[in-house]
């Protein structure tokens, strides 16, 4: 038997807990759907129309999310941002240097390393899921 709430805050607390529970189930459903989508999409071969559509759908959704984005205006520290920029620049530079050199077996690029990782369906699925996950992380803000 439930007693009457002492104040409104108790009802709010219960509602918040229920909403959180629903949100958790919602997130789990979205993650499961994304994983199923990634598994199906990663089963199609490159250079085919189904694969092109399967990749285009997240790209279009990401573009829509970009249009609707209202980035967080909360001020965060800039300290250390240069390290991230330097790491990205180093990666990009090494990728371009490797791309210009040949043979590819002696000068691997990220693409050739990814091709090796994607030579099986589970590997291709992991890469596709990671790509969708990074997209979600980039465009959720």
């Amino acid at each position: 038997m439930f007693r009457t709430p002492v104040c409104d805050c108790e009802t709010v607390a219960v509602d918040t807990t229920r909403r959180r529970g629903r949100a958790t189930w919602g997130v789990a459903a979205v993650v499961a759907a994304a994983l199923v989508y990634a598994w199906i999409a990663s089963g199609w071969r490159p250079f085919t129309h189904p694969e092109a559509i399967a990749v285009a759908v997240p790209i279009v959704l990401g573009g829509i999310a970009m249009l609707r984005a209202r980035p967080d205006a909360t001020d965060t520290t800039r300290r250390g941002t240069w390290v991230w920029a330097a790491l990205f620049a180093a990666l990009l530079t090494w990728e371009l240097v490797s791309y210009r050199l040949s043979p590819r077996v002696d000068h691997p690029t990220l693409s050739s390393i990814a091709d090796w990782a994607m030579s099986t369906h589970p590997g291709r699925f992991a890469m596709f899921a990671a790509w969708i996950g990074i997209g979600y992380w980039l465009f959720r803000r």
Partner: protein
Amino acid sequence: MSSSTAGYAVYALIAAVAIVWAAITYLLRPRFATVDDAVTRLVRHRVARWIVWALWAFVGWHLFVRGSGAFK
């Protein structure tokens, strides 16, 4: 050391530094910008936001649609 070993070593070094720096910034936040802080700051600018989207889209298209070695 062969060329390919050096090539892989440079990628591994960059990845290792990124992981260590990510751990340091996470443990010392908010004193240093985490990768999430850096990206949040970056995508505040409209042009940068679309550059990030284009880069992500290019990576996906290049790897999964125009991929050269998958399923050989």
